[in-house]
């Protein structure tokens, strides 16, 4: 139930001969309710992998399936439905700075309604209540009517999490959620993500630059290097040499 399967997923940018291969044959399975941390250097293909799962990036070959449904062949309405089921949060929050927090949270529901209502910025009462509940859960209810640009980075990322919750997702894809935040806010945001994983049973796949944070929050780590899986298992199994290979190559 609710398992996500990737089968020899490949993504190549550019033409055949000189194209850069970002993801090079990744196969893995994630079961419902897991919290997976993906670790690796920048450029290892972490971000491309997450974007492929959401279908923001089209895989060159290979397939993704969820509960037996082939995600890679979805089109139109079905694709939109899939995207709303696997919510995404981004390193730079990707919020609409000039709109208020509540409207930003409500943008998680845009795919579900007629565009004429979307154009007029009309949201049903129940959606507003849900949005406020999500904000309450993240301790941001008091800021609901402020413009996003007046919020701190940590608060903005939590608004993005509230927006993701509005999608009633089965999976939460977090692309470097704390890379633009200070340590204190990083902790708040990671705690919130963990809480969602625990309380709502939402699968979380989280790209993390910091190995420390990854070890602390996930029971399963996946190490990527040059688009390939070099490690998959609990943090205890991660050897010193392997973590050095994953991170310290840059220093050489």
């Amino acid at each position, binding site marked *: 139930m609710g398992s996500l399967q990737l089968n020899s997923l490949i993504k190549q940018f550019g033409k055949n001969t000189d194209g850069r291969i970002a993801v090079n044959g990744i196969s893995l399975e994630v079961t419902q309710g897991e919290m997976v941390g993906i670790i690796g250097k920048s450029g290892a293909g972490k971000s491309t992998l997450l974007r492929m799962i959401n279908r*923001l990036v089209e895989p060159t070959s290979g397939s993704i399936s969820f509960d037996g449904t082939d995600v890679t062949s979805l089109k139109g309405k079905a694709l939109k439905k899939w995207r*709303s089921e696997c919510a995404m949060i981004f390193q730079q929050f990707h919020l609409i700075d000039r709109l208020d927090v509540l*409207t930003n949270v409500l*943008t998680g529901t*845009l795919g579900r309604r007629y565009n004429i209502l979307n154009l007029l910025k009309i949201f049903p009462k129940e959606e507003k209540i849900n949005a406020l509940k999500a904000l309450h859960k993240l301790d941001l209810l008091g800021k609901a009517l402020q413009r996003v640009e007046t919020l701190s980075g940590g608060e903005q990322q939590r608004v993005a999490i509230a927006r993701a919750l509005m999608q009633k997702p089965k999976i939460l894809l977090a692309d470097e959620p704390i890379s633009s935040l200070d340590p204190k806010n990083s902790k708040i945001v990671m705690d919130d993500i963990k809480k969602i994983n625990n309380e709502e049973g939402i699968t979380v796949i989280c790209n993390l630059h910091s190995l420390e944070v990854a070890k602390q929050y996930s029971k399963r780590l996946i190490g990527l290097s040059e688009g390939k899986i070099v490690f998959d298992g609990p943090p205890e199994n991660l050897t010193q040499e392997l973590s050095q290979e994953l991170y310290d190559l840059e220093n050489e």
Partner: protein
Amino acid sequence: MNNILENYSKNYSEQIKKRRFWNIFIVLGLFVAILISSSIIDLNMTRITSGIPRLGDYIAKILPNLDTNLLFANSQIEGSVPYWYFNFKKYIVLLYETFNMAVLSTLFGFVFALLLSFFSARNITPNVLSFFFVKRFLEFLRGVPEIIFAILFVWALGVGPLAGIIAMTIHTTGALGKLFSEVHENAELKSCEAIRSAGGGWVPEMRYGVLPQVLPNIISYALLRFEINIRASTVIGFVGAGGIGQELYLVINFNYYEEVSAIILLIILTVITIDITSGALRQRIIKGTHD
């Protein structure tokens, strides 16, 4: 050491020579272009010298004969301002019509331009084909001057402001459409990606991802266009497309001399007033975005 210096100064003098050559070339080119252009236009001193007194005469004729003692007498007395502006009420109605022509054409043009600009911006267009065709279409609308469209619509719709409004709307659509799509092309598309990742389609992406950030800029451009359209609406009547220009054309051709200056003065005042107001408004909008 000496060698280096020598080389250096040699290099320098060569560069100077090159530069001098180009300067002479450009000046000569300009000179030739002026000669050719002057002969095409048949520009010569006698035409200018014979024209200037006539221009002076004409200006003297259209300026009012104001008598300082009678300035505020009633409209029956020559030399008074009311006599000069005996048609004031009519002018005011026409100016109001002119103003409304500019308002309506700017507004309609704004709406059409905004709708089309989402297709003609390279980074957000839903498909390449619509990008190409909408862009070419806007270029055509912008390329043809409004007064040419006005002549066309006067034929089709008859004399009156409707022809002028449609003509200016068309031109405004083209001009604003181009500017708006340039604004869109500079937009930050991060929030669009987020909306897409949440299952939102192209329309919500535009409405929530693009529109809020470009709005101050496009409103400021629309106000600038309004200032331009106010000017245009004062002359589009020359071809019968309504507004005060129609009256001005009439009084010039019928040689109602003093009325010419009366109308032109009103036009200048209107244009300057609107420029100042709209300029202040634009300043506020641009500033507001930096707060």
